[in-house]
């Protein structure tokens, strides 16, 4: 880490709410940190925790998960399932020695472009404070170099 650390974050968005919030942030020309790269899913319920692991293992420093507000899911109640998985995933991460704060769940409706932009900015700063994860550089959480990547992730 020579210069200042710029986190790389993968963001998962729901097609019906947060992806549209990102569209809205764009249309309204709201500015936010360029560190987040978004992936569109049909629903936050589609989020397989494997995706988060894969992103972290492939070099992301943090993962942002976004979905419809509770009670507003396009598919009735699937965001609750995303919430359950998220809470479980954080415990797993903790057990693996990764700060659970590297994964964050945010609710953003299609009307909340500003909220999404603000949440992205906040999260980028949170990850910046945590420092690089560098899982892809074959380093374990304790800083020891490994022969193999910390883990192989397959779907």
């Amino acid at each position: 880490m020579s210069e200042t650390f710029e986190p790389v974050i993968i963001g998962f968005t729901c097609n019906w709410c947060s992806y549209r919030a990102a569209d809205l942030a764009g249309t309204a020309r709201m500015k936010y940190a360029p560190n987040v790269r978004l992936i569109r899913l049909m629903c936050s319920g589609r989020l397989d925790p494997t995706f988060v692991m894969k992103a972290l293992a492939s070099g992301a420093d943090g993962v942002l998960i976004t979905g419809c507000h509770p009670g507003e899911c396009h598919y009735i109640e699937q965001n609750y399932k995303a919430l359950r998985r998220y809470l479980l995933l954080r415990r797993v991460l903790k057990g693996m020695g990764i700060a659970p704060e590297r994964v964050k769940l945010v609710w953003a409706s299609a009307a909340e472009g500003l909220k999404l932009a603000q949440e992205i900015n906040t999260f980028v700063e949170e990850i910046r404070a945590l420092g690089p994860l560098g899982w892809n550089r074959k380093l374990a959480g304790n800083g020891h170099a490994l022969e193999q990547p910390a883990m192989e992730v397959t779907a």
Partner: protein
Amino acid sequence: MSAESGSKKPRVGVYVCHCGTNISHTVDVEQVREWAEKTLGAEGVVIARDYKFMCSSLGQELIEKDIKELGLERVVVAACSPHLHELTFRGASKRAGLNPYLTELASIREQVSWVHTDKAVATEKAKAVVAGAVERVIKNEPLEEIRVPIHPDTLVVGGGIAGIQAALEIANAGFKVYLVEREPSIGGHMAQFDKTFPTLDCAACILTPRMFEAGTHPNIELLTWSEVTHVAGYVGNFTVTVKKKPRYVNTDLCTGCGICVEKCPKKVVDDVYEAGLGYRKVVYTPFAQAVPKYPVIDAPNCTYFQKGTCKACEKFCPTNAIDFTQKEEYVTIQVGNIILATGYDLFDARRVSNYGYGRLANVFTSIEFERMSNAAGPTGGNIVLRDGKTQPKTVGIIHCVGSRDKNYNNYCSSICCMQSLKFAHLVKERTGATVYEFYIDMRTPMKAYDEFYQRVLEEGTLFVRGKVAQVTNAARNEREEGKLIIQVEDTLAGKQRRIPVDMVILSIGMEPRHDAKETSHLFGVGCSSDGWFIEKHPKLDPVSTMTEGVMIAGCATGPKDIPASVAQGAAAAARVLNKIMQKEVVLEPIKASIDQEKCSGCRICNGLCPFNAILFHEDRMVSEINPALCQGCGTCVAACPAGAISGTGFSNEQILAQIDGLLMDVNLAV
């Protein structure tokens, strides 16, 4: 980059759009193009171009030409949001003979150029987004739209005014409708009302012709005293099971003469139609104009069913239509579409104990007053106190009972202001009593509503703005002796007032049906935390639901007045007719499917699907997804521990590849 070795990489074309200067002012489009061609060449990119406006016909022709001449097998367009132009570019691919689902849009406008300022950083991010899309599109599979034939028959659940309207619209267009109603007669709440605001035309006069029309229409099959117990299938092909409760009256023989009702020796309080204010016989039709005209025997109260004797109705029936041996019957019907018009329940006024309903005799609910003011009601239209004879000299009408109140329901029931104004008018007209209205805000927004408010004001009704604290009979002085005292803070005068009245009418709000949650699960529609059914879009699609083929109308989606319910019934019918006329419905091919070989039968996915799309085969111990019911959310795909479920359009392979692509620069830097 761990690409499978051996297999040939598909030929990908990348098209970067300037969008005028919308993209190019923050993203170095030329650099992205060059980089895509060079760096992504190893991933299969054979051509990368940039163009001022990719979405223009010339831009699209560029893509079409390359597909044909260069034999492109995948296309990535780096431009705006897929919500804007995904269909445009899928169309271009389709015209050139490429499966439309092999085209991806990389959003470098909404997600890059419009939200970032530093050109170098934005260009790098744009590259990552393009790389993500390229890696993803390589894993895309050709998909075909799913076409499902539509059964022309329709089920309407709920025979209130919204359901009747919907049924008539569809039946008049020449298609068969099954109208299911839980009560013995159609008509719903409207049949209980006396006058309707703001025109004051009598509810029965405008409703009963519609009921009669629905009852005699050759295309409408009435299933009254019946309930839907099971729904299977999907848009165009629903199989619905309806429970017909036993009437103990053979409707083939019954002429509706009413002799059985006349001869029945037992009376019980009518809690449903007369709101507890009047009585009905044990064999009864809810009201004189009931449709159908056949009576029902109330078995739990019938002397014959209790003691085994009586049978007066059977003795006197001239056509031998009484049949005590009837059992409940289940009928199965096939329909293509369903309209839910299941209506509302009234708020239970007993819950607001400080208003004394059920404790203080002369506190009435709005529905009791409706029955009382109805000429066919228990008092013959006389407005009297609970003793049945004394006319009130002063009447207090309290708005928002159970509505706009954090303790009960936060929402406005929308009809209570107008209903209360109507009551004030009727009380004045029939008794000449002094009328007080206690309101929080007066809400009269629809056509001719505010004019009616002005009219009631001019008639001399007294308006007190303030939420009533309590209704009590504890008198503090002679003036209050023997009266009901309404304690209220008059917020316009800025003081506490105690107003003695003879009669209090509580304008109770609407609530979702007590069984709305079960109904929503039965039909696979969404239900808000309040219990109202959720529209597909509250403004632009208020009668559709997230479940294709299931529409909603009337108060089942929230409080509404009669005109709005009728409009929604007609709108839902238009939606259904539109589907029927298309003869088949086209569904997006974004669906989940289960590999029957891999499925271990653990059933984890079964409980995750809110659309009942996952069927478990007990015999083979595997689950299967019905593609027409699946809405494509992918929750089951993410949950399957065996990896047996795959989701088209958003497969694990696609998402994992996209992650690889998005993080390509990070990995290249290592």
